[in-house]
């Protein structure tokens, strides 16, 4: 046993990407360029704008007076400066957490009502996803620059970073298990090393995004939720501090590039 234990792991450590895999990667890149030309994201943005202006809830109010951090009703450039600390809620919020806050305060909706269907499907996006498409699009061309001056913003960044490297769960995974090493893939999916600014930047500049493979529009709250599902953890609460902290860690790490989303993904 001890002989095998010494020798075999060394012999195992010779990973290689074959020629076939490289060809497949080129095909995927070609496919990605092709699909970017035929994305329905613009339609989602229009639907989101309509929902932003639609009176809803017990107060029959629209979200047009929602303060996304740059003043009530200001949507231009707001997404590029999230997450940030909001004194009226005394916490750091990302886009969806802030939208949820406005739904409960301005529209008078219950949290239960506003979060009944936060993740949509291929037939219909969720309200949150339509709104995210609209709001994010209003930051196109604006450099991503989440606010990081408040102590709670800094605390969120640090909590997000620690959580990113925290291993637990049924399969012993942290975020870094998949997003911690250069040049790795799950099946054919490339995995960006998200704690490195150069890898985080293109991610931050293109989410939320339309996924062609399943015809769905997805936000960062969904991305984190789905990662934890695949990591075999229990489920993070929508808009919870831990999800905002992870988004703050990612966004601040990948800050600086002009926003060019909502993107189109595989």
């Amino acid at each position, binding site marked *: *046993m001890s*002989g*095998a*234990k010494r020798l075999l*792991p060394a*012999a*195992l*450590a*010779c*990973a*290689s*990407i*074959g020629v076939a*895999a490289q060809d497949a990667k080129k095909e995927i890149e070609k496919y990605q360029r092709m699909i970017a030309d035929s994305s329905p994201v613009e339609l989602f943005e229009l639907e989101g704008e309509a929902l932003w202006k639609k009176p809803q809830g017990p107060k029959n109010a629209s979200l047009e007076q929602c303060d996304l951090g*740059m003043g009530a009703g200001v949507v231009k450039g707001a997404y590029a*400066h999230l997450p940030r600390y909001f004194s009226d809620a005394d916490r750091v919020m990302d886009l969806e957490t802030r939208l949820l806050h406005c739904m409960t305060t301005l529209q008078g909706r219950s949290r239960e009502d506003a979060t009944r269907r936060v993740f949509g499907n291929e037939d219909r996006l969720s309200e949150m996803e339509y709104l995210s498409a609209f709001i994010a699009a209003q930051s196109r061309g604006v*450099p991503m*620059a*989440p*606010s*990081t*001056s408040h102590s709670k*913003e*800094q605390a969120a960044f*640090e*909590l997000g*970073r620690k959580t990113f*490297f*925290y*291993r*637990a*769960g*049924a*399969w*012993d995974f942290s975020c*870094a298990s998949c997003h*911690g090493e250069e040049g*790795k*893939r*799950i*099946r*054919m999916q490339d*995995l960006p090393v998200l*704690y*490195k*600014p150069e890898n985080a930047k293109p991610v931050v500049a293109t989410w939320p995004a339309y996924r062609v493979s399943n015809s769905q529009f997805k936000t960062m709250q969904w991305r984190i939720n789905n990662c934890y*599902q695949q990591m*075999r*953890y*229990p*489920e*993070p*609460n929508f808009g*919870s*501090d*831990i999800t905002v*902290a992870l988004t703050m860690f990612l966004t*601040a*790490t990948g*800050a600086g590039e002009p926003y060019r989303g909502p993107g189109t993904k595989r």
Partner: protein
Amino acid sequence: MKRAATYGVLALLAACASVPVGERPKLSESDLSEVYAVLKRDFHARGAATMSRVEPDRTQRMCNLHADNPPAELARALEDEQLKNIPFPAEIMGDWKRGQRIAESGVGLQWSDRPGTVSGGSCYNCHELSPRQESHGTLGPSLKAFGKVRGSGAETQRYVYGKIYNAKAFNLCSQMPRLGLSGTLSEQQIKDLVAYLLDPGSPVNR
């Protein structure tokens, strides 16, 4: 606004000068307690995914505290303890055809799985195995022609079974899940995977 953002980034960099952006921090005991407390508060059990999963066990703790690189003697002690607890079956080689389906399947232990779902091994998510399956990940080493290179002797069978059952018995902070210990795969499923890797008739070795 732009100036405010610049100051913000500078303040952030100053606040965490000990660990610059882009570097991996080493988690302390208090960091672990903090993250655990937040996970307990901000996650909920769903389906098969119980809340007990967010609490690190001794192996996970050790790897968290040492950024996956624990002192050799501490690692060796925990590895040996886990090696001793692997319940090796008398007969180790199963059926490679069943093993192939297990290697391809990525279901199991997720909150989205229906109760009673038979888990797969998710092997192709991270490893190259059969040259016929081009859609394979690269997080783990290539296992192409694994049995062809190493043969299928008793020692090798035991090593492969043990590695799949509990990868941490061989390399404490391996990124590979402990597929037997975690209850993901049954004894028979692991035996079938051993055959998929070692049997000369398996596509992995042809």
